[in-house]
């Protein structure tokens, strides 16, 4: 009697978790936009045997955005998942992997990210500020003012904007704009840039130095601007295969969309 087919893999089986971990590492390692994503749930798994010790695995994953920018060297295990009240962003990914003699490799991956619905947030937290569109005028003004403020005070490289990661606008009890954005060091010092900022270009990939800034602009009851930027130092670049679609993200080169 032919051997009974193996029982279908459960989504919480160790083999499924290993495949999901390989998929999430691939997704985070090959994206250059937004934030790192962490596994929240394995929605489905399907294994299609190809021969002895050779399987194709189809995974359906539910991910959640963390607070770590995608270019941050922080290991994913140390990245905090954004809480529901901070207006979480979910990633839905379909990943195809191959497992040969126990070694997993990603063959294809397609993801879509979307912020949680405002209604859901306000139901739980009526006063929580919501994510603003990244093209919001107040957001763009805040990012521009914050970057100018930082560059006017730093003694290091002149920084250029790479992309705005996320932003929120609160109107009550104070009018506050909070924005997070990714930056890159240029080939100018901040002093040189005062003469001709237009000539300052991002450092070439083999010397690149990326960083991340958080800014808080209080508009009412009194004007105040706080900026904090952290540069990561040079890291070994990874081939840019953008994966997670980033709705509304402003790129330094328009049209650089993601699949």
């Amino acid at each position, binding site marked *: 009697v032919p051997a009974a087919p193996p029982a279908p893999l459960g989504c919480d089986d160790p083999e499924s978790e290993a495949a999901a971990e390989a998929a999430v590492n691939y997704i985070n390692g090959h994206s250059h936009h937004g934030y790192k994503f962490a*596994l*929240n749930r*394995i929605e489905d798994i399907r294994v299609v045997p190809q021969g002895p010790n050779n399987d194709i695995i189809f995974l359906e994953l539910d991910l959640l955005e963390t607070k770590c920018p995608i270019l941050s060297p922080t290991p994913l295990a140390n990245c905090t998942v954004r809480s529901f009240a901070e207006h979480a962003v979910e990633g839905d990914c379909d990943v195809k992997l191959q497992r040969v003699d126990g070694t997993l490799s990603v063959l294809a991956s397609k993801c879509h990210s979307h912020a949680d619905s405002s209604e859901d947030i306000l139901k739980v937290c009526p006063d929580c500020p919501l994510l603003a569109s990244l093209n919001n005028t107040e957001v763009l003004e805040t990012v521009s003012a914050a970057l100018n403020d930082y560059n006017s005070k730093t003694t290091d490289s002149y920084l250029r904007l790479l992309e705005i990661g996320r932003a929120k606008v609160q109107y009550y009890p104070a009018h506050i704009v909070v924005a997070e954005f990714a930056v890159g060091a240029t080939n100018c010092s901040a002093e040189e840039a005062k003469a001709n900022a237009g000539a300052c270009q991002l450092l070439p990939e083999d010397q690149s130095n990326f960083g991340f800034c958080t800014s808080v602009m209080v508009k009412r009851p009194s004007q105040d601007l706080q900026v904090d930027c952290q540069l990561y130092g040079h890291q070994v670049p990874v081939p840019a295969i953008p994966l997670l679609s980033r709705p509304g993200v402003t790129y330094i080169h328009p049209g650089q969309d993601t699949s």
Partner: protein
Amino acid sequence: SVTKRAVAGAAQHDKVPRPVGFVPRPPPCPGKIRHFDI
């Protein structure tokens, strides 16, 4: 030879008492939620 069992018979057959301590296997998917569901 394969014989088609009457539904009643099959139903009776399924009424076979389960061994003591039998824990039904949780549905294989979707898996557990690690953070929260949105």
